[in-house]
């Protein structure tokens, strides 16, 4: 793998960048692999990378039906945080956040992880109480958390509406200073390049059309590029988890819903923190290119249509103005939809399934991007050892039968609880 650095960049500049090597190969699929990962998004690629790096398993193929990172990796609003209340979530996402902190150098690919802080706004005393509870829990879990009062929020985000007439009065907020954003495409590309360098076959334009079973055991996949045998199969297809799992005859506690997101035209810096408001159902940050990146709620009906829809856009742009009256004159440049794999308790499923050699990493709801390195880490462990890592033991399918759900929001049995 040709190392990237300011020096190599300068060296190549002299040759007009005419002999940069490929970031990853474009191999033909082999007839069989030790492990086949279905899904060439951040999660699948990270899993392949850690299988090779942590577990020495490099006879691995990552099968992507389209182009790498073309699903939710390339559609999400790139927020990275670990500000969770429940121990299982807190431990897992904090592990992931720690991996983020070293990721650019780990992969020798700048994923532009920007720890600019993630701020949850509180608009009522009840919300302040809830954030106090969460902040206290975070600190006890060893996660950075700062409870801000009104003035503390004003110092960080003066553009918010602090007037008496504000529809969402600012009572304060919960800040995780180590949270932030990252460059979504770069995460997929960086993991792909690093996994490829360790011998992983990354195969694009290869859609899985069937999963081969012998009794309660999976043995391979049918694809648009032929049959591929596999010792083990790991599923990392986010919004399509239910769809692909059905090929193996599995039904899951997951519904696929559309999440809308949008960017504004590029502007000079005006927002240095990730700001989210649960009450207003909107979150916003500013990309390095200058675009405001914002999103809100689901469409709330099952959908695999990766396209924009107006109602959600209208409601969260309205909320955005309610929070930031100065944003009303800006223009929305692009909006789109991503397919979210919503579990019924809002927490992911990472682990074994009723089928042998068949593993699932899915049910990410809105939270998949920030989990990318962490889920790759524990999913690789789960596949390599046929047993979960301590960090993903709680995220098992069994929890739905026992009732030991991980309901961060406490909303009961509804899709998109989180």
């Amino acid at each position, binding site marked *: 793998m040709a190392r*990237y650095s300011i020096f190599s960049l300068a060296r190549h500049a002299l040759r007009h960048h005419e002999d940069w090597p490929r970031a990853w190969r474009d191999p033909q699929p082999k007839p069989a692999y030790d492990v086949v990962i279905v899904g060439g998004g951040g999660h699948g690629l990270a899993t392949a990378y850690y299988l090779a790096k942590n577990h020495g398993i490099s006879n691995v193929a990552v099968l992507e039906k389209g182009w790498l990172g073309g699903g939710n990796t390339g559609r999400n609003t790139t927020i990275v945080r670990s500000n969770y209340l429940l121990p299982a979530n807190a431990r897992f996402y904090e592990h992931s956040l720690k991996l983020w902190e070293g990721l650019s150098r780990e992969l020798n690919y700048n994923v532009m992880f920007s720890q600019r802080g993630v701020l949850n706004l509180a608009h009522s005393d009840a919300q302040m*109480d809830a954030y*106090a509870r969460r902040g206290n829990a975070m600190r*006890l879990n060893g996660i950075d958390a700062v409870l801000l009062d009104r003035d503390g929020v004003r110092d960080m985000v003066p553009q918010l509406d602090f007037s008496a007439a504000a529809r969402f009065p600012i009572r304060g907020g919960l800040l995780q200073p180590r949270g932030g954003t990252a460059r979504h495409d770069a995460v997929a590309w960086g993991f792909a390049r690093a996994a490829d360098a360790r011998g992983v076959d990354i195969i694009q334009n290869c859609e899985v059309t069937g999963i081969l079973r012998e009794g309660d055991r999976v043995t391979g996949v049918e694809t648009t590029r032929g049959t591929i045998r596999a010792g083990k199969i790991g599923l990392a297809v986010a919004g399509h988890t239910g769809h692909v799992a059905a090929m193996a005859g599995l039904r899951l506690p997951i519904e696929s819903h559309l999440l809308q997101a949008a960017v504004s035209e590029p*502007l000079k810096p005006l927002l240095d923190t990730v700001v989210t408001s649960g009450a207003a159902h909107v979150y916003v940050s500013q990309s390095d290119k200058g675009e405001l990146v914002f999103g809100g709620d689901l469409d709330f009906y099952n959908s695999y249509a990766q396209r924009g829809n107006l109602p959600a856009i209208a409601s969260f742009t309205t909320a955005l103005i309610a929070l930031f009256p100065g944003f*009303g004159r800006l223009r929305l440049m692009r909006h789109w939809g991503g397919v979210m794999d919503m579990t019924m308790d809002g927490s992911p499923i990472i682990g074994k399934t009723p089928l042998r050699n068949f593993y699932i990493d899915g049910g990410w709801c809105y939270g998949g991007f920030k989990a990318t390195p962490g889920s790759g880490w524990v999913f690789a462990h789960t596949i390599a050892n046929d047993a979960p890592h301590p960090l993903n033991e709680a995220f098992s399918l069994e929890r739905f039968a026992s009732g030991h759900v991980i309901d961060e929001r406490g909303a009961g049995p509804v899709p998109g609880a989180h």
Partner: protein
Amino acid sequence: MPPQPFRLPQGGRIDRSRSLAFTFNGRRYDGHPGDTLASALLANGVALVARSFKYHRPRGVMSAGAEEACAFVQLGEGARSDPNCRATQIELFDGLTAASLNCWPNVQLDFGVVSDRLHRLLPAGFYYKTFMWPRRGWLTYEKLIRRAAGLGRAPSEPDPDRYEKRFAHADLLIAGGGPAGLAAALAAGRTGARVILADENGEFGGQLLWRDAEIDGEPALRWVERSLAELSSLPEVRLLPRSTVAGYYDHNFLTVLERVTDHLSPFAAPTATPRQRLWKVRARQVVLATGAIERPLVFINNDLPGIMLAGAAQAYIRRHAVRPGGRAVIFTNNDSAYETVAALSEAGVAITAVIDARAGDTAAAEACLRRGIEVLRGHAVIDASGGHALREVTVAPLDGSATALAGAASTLRCDLLCVSGGWSPTVHLFSQSGGKLAFDAASGCFIPGESRQAERSAGAARGSFDLAACLAEGHAAGLAAARAAGFAGPDSPPPQAPAQAMSPIRPLWEVPSPHQGRRDRKFVDLQNDVTAADIALAAREGYRSVEHTKRYTTAGMGVDQGKTGNLNTLAILAGETQGAIPAVGTTTFRPPYTPVTIGALAGRGVGDFYDPVRKTPMSPWHEARGAVFEPVGKWRRPLYYPGPGEGMEAAVRRECLAVRNAVGLCDASTLGKIDIKGRDAVTLLDRVYTNSWGSLAIGRCRYGLMLKDDGMVFDDGVTTRLGERHYLMTTTSGHAEAVFGWLEEWLQCEWLGLDVYLTSVTTHWATAMLAGPRAREVLAAAGTDIDTSRAGSPYMTVREGHVAGIPARLFRVSFTGELSFEINVPARYGLALWETLMAAGAAFGIEPIGTEALHVLRAEKGYIVVGHDTDGTVTPYDLGMGWIVDQKKPDFIGKRGLRRSDLVRTGRRQLVGLLTDDPAQIIPEGSQIVRSGASLAATPVPMLGHVTSSYWSPALQRSIAMALIEGGQDRQGEAVEAVLPDRTLRAVIGTSRFYDPEGVRLHG
């Protein structure tokens, strides 16, 4: 310099009788009505308008429409300042001010240009390869990059303008008011169909506004005028100028952004009129007549000011009466640019030569030669030079494959280069609609393939560039759409235009370089400064999917969304990957077509109209009394009623003591109320509550707890039997709608047979809660015909009669632990009742009670508040309320859920009382609880639970708290610690029934 040195003496669609003064970069200029900012700048000889996004290269006006990739400006100042506006779409008004973007100190001398000098270090994706050192270094580099990036500046004040939205329903929506769109509107409008015709320009006519054409044997513009006159006379046709069809969504739902007053000075605009209006159109049928966009040609330095699309040059001459240059060269690979040649000579622009990539003879070229204009056939412009303005171009012959040069180069002086690389149909809306594109090799562009919605493309939008064809297709599409929408009205003859003979285009995606390799900078995406070399680099590194190329190089990701650059990007990528263009595929076009003002998406749903604030009949009294409110769902409820100079703490203490010692009055009108009638009413109650209801006598009340089917607590409240088959259910204020909807869902989806009718009467009744030892005396003083004595109205009963002369239901229930009545009267009398009770109560020390005092009072009794002490993961057993779960009932919602293994395990979090060792200390709600003596240093620290409710109890003169604690009910007497950010508080677990545990007082 004379005023408007480049203004033509006559012609054009401008009003020379009026002058409009405007300011650009601090300098004052004049223009005329009919000008855009771009045409006015050109008329004044301003060639340098902006600096580019990445390299800060000088840029001028390169188009005359929405496709503009260079001439972006900051429009206006202060609160109305508008970033990233296309000079080509800004209609000039008197007093307009604008400034160049992304340059410092000014557009002439821009220090940012240093990045242009360093360009070799900054190829596509350079930032992915560096800035990784030191470990946390990125935050520092990022600051610099962020400052360099971005275009315009956001205004800092709130937007003072008004925006509207409205729904519209149409049999046919037509996007684009050019020849095809107008023909479609006429054909459909004449059948009586409801037609909306939207065009993004201030004038209808599209290219007819600047092309020299004939329709039905008269000048095209006459036909446009007659067509508009007829359309305006048709009652069901709506013409929307300055209106961009922005988004095409499912089921033929489209958005149209109408710029109502943007063409007026903000001070001239009528006040009640919105600045912009977002139309939400549900159309039975759609015709896309969105025209086509001309493609630039890709050669070295093809981004200099003075290099302009050929069609745009023609538009500036014929529509705006502006001479876009003094000495011109035309560079084309197709016939369309020859119209520009004619226009240029009419305008008296010296024409050095026409450079036609096509080697063979063409009628168009012959015509030029006859007029003595030199035409270099089989040639290309390979380079351009000049600083802030074009000075000369270098031309050379092309070889047969157009991939290499076939001879010596020569230079031509000029200050204007008109380029035409052919035309790309504007297929954005078609693509948004879900339709798949097809590549038309003959004209070298993507055209609409099969439709996925009730939609038709017509004219140039469909790849038909000949006027006669545009008119015919538009007419046919309009008529077919009307028929499909069910209109049999008359057909009319389609408008006619003489057919034009056109010679074929010679595709030329990238002009070959004089040098080897990829050292030259030929811009493909002028907005984001993406060069052909960047595309090649992406392909070389393996970013070969068009989406990868786009994201890696940022081609097509700019404000112009790559309208001019998309196809050239694809073609160059195809070349690099030895693929065919259709194989490379096209990127998906995401809405909107052009950026939409966020304020317009919000419309009037801002400020007080953001969300309804629900008010009770007593709200005016609370407001007059100066109550402090808190949101409860969409309601605003009094939190407390401050006395003169009184803070929350003191007010709440006063209110609590009033209830314990005298009497208080609380507005409980927000409580959910559901009227239940029917023979199976009691069956319903037995199924949705955990306890049994068969035994409830008429006139009696009972408390009930509702679970979801997972066994978790959902809501609670008192339900009263009013008649043989008639009950009244109350719910929490926050859950009223949810409970009502949930009951309906069970009745309509699961229990279809039940004879039960639910009616929400929440707001039909106003509810005043009178609580305290002297409540009876207040009722007596207010006047009532109901026997309120202990015997006459025992605890948990209802009586009907009158209070203060108002028909009332008197519920003897208590949420405070005191003698208490909930008085329900028809809402119209709510305020009258309240005022009467306050007056009658004065003698007994009555106080109005807010929700905070109410919460303190109920907490003293250990009563839960669903959603406060519970969170959707709590069972009745967790709350110590197993007594209300009747396991003998065959079934109720949640019964099976409660049996699941995790819900019956030991060690679940259970609700308990907490008393701090120091009675003066109040544990903040939300505090986490840990074992006493647990070390907070070694994280993660095991947490036993958290505090759900915590108050100062005026009655007990100490703090009290409720908490959910692991195995709490077996930990009575155990000491724990509540963790605060800065310290811990020691407390002991006990019962949560802090006050009057025997309930003597409420039976009072």
